[in-house]
């Protein structure tokens, strides 16, 4: 069921026709449309958007931690269409430990962004070509951008020195 705010958006209508039920929610925030997509359909939806709706670019992939709410994470895909001068946000809600399908086969540029999201939030991406830490050292414990990860008090903290 297409949410009301997205009913007039041709891109949202297109996705809803091809993948009924993929859009679970929609929000219009200050003139920017964001659609919540069913986690298991994100790659197909992205491929359709790239090939049929001219979203040539994936600006970034990131996440928002809504701890202690469940599902905890919101993976955010920032899409950009140069041809139509349009921007679109896709959200995928996942629980802690749940994996999301990687969109690297659609946009190669998702590689580093998904690595960063994995590194800082601990969200694994399935079928990612090289899912390693990118910002933190390889032997780092924990994922710093999680809300339950302390800003100070980690065992590497230099606060007491």
């Amino acid at each position, binding site marked *: 069921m297409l949410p009301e705010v997205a009913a007039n958006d041709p891109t949202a209508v297109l996705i809803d026709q091809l993948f009924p039920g993929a859009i679970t929610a929609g929000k219009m925030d200050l003139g920017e449309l964001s659609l919540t997509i069913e986690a298991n359909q994100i790659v197909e939806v992205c491929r359709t958007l790239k090939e049929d709706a001219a979203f040539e670019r994936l600006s*970034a992939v990131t996440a928002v931690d809504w701890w202690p709410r469940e599902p905890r994470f919101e993976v955010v895909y920032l899409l950009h269409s140069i041809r139509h001068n349009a*921007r679109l946000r896709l959200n995928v809600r996942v629980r802690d430990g749940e994996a999301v399908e990687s969109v690297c086969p659609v946009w190669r540029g998702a*590689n580093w962004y998904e690595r960063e999201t994995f590194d800082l939030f601990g969200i694994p991406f399935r079928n990612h070509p090289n899912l390693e830490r990118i910002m*933190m050292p390889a032997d780092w414990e924990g994922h710093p951008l999680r809300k339950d990860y302390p800003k100070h008090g980690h065992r590497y903290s230099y606060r007491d020195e």
Partner: protein
Amino acid sequence: MIEGKAHVASLDAEHELAIEDPSGLKSPVEEPSARRRLTLNMGPQHPSTHGVLRVVLELDGETIIKARPEIGYLHTGIEKECEAKRYQQVVPLTDRVDYLSNLNNNLCYSLAVERLLGLEIPLMAQWMRVMLCELQRVSSHLVWLGTHAMDVGAMTVYFYTFREREEILKIFEMFSGQRMMTSYIRPGGLALEPPRGWHKVVSRAVEGLVRGVEEYHELLTANPIWVNRTKGIGMLPVDVLLDLAVTGPVLRAAGVKTDARKDRPHSSYDQFDFEVPTRTANDVYARYEVRMEEMRQSVRIIRQALEGMPNGAWQADAPHILLPDREKMKTQMEALIYHFKIVTEGYRVPAGSVYQVVESPRGELGYYVVSDGTANPHRVFMRTPSFGNLQALGAMIEGVLVADAIPIMASLDFVLGDTDR
């Protein structure tokens, strides 16, 4: 030549056997061998990486077979730090993300917060922001040009560009008291009133810039060494560049006309007359041409701002967000109360999320700010142009000579602080 190579190969026992091959067809010299490959660490302390970037190169002689950029050496957790700060305290952190385009980062964050707050900015403040951001663009391009030329051996250009850059930094110091970490653009307007006599100083600096850009043009554009070192290298197909999240001058040098200042005009950019330069050659030289032209266009914008700077307030009328005037604080009770409230608890921002894009000197700079209705941002994600552009480095330098990798890296114009945050 061949004798020399045979000598190297003869150190290898396996190859010695091959030399004794009576047919003589199986030459050990020409045969590519995985054992002869050399893995070389370029960086993290290498002057041409412009910061702490490490590129693991796999070499076959002088040719790069595989390149793996490693980042994270400058990761300072700015995004985590933002979540612990109040909205107004985040501004100085945004300076430190991309330390060559501080004002663009200030502007992007401020615009995002202002949109969440629903705040209107007076026209004069908007124009002042535009003027300063264009000065910042020129100063960033000057650093790029100077270091780029130095990387390929033209030392002189560096001194010239830093001469003009110094004038721009003096302007920033005059406006904000700081040369680089200005924090001058803040949610609600500007941090301080524009100083007396700014018009004259900026006008003089612009004259110097025009002369300077022509000087660099004469030094480099037709310089045979510069042309030979930059033409025909670093090319990637346009669809690959788009795929790899490359933005800014690198993308425009490949013929894709996209610029956030034109696509989504903010801060009354639509009132200025300027062009978005593009080239189709797609190589390092085309990127040079695009950035040179961008400097000329920025000068054009600054001149328009100087001519038509509107009168009016430099801050929005929002006492609950902006710190009151010092003098008012001493005489008016309300001003003192607002000051106390802002300093002790900050201001609440309505819940919501926004992705604000501006055109930084390096490309698409975006701030994704999520508010949960409190005085601290719930999440600040910085979509930095260097991170996206650096992803293309591996693909760009694979198959080229090591010597060509240096100008290619310089042409991407990344800032490691911007990459690692």
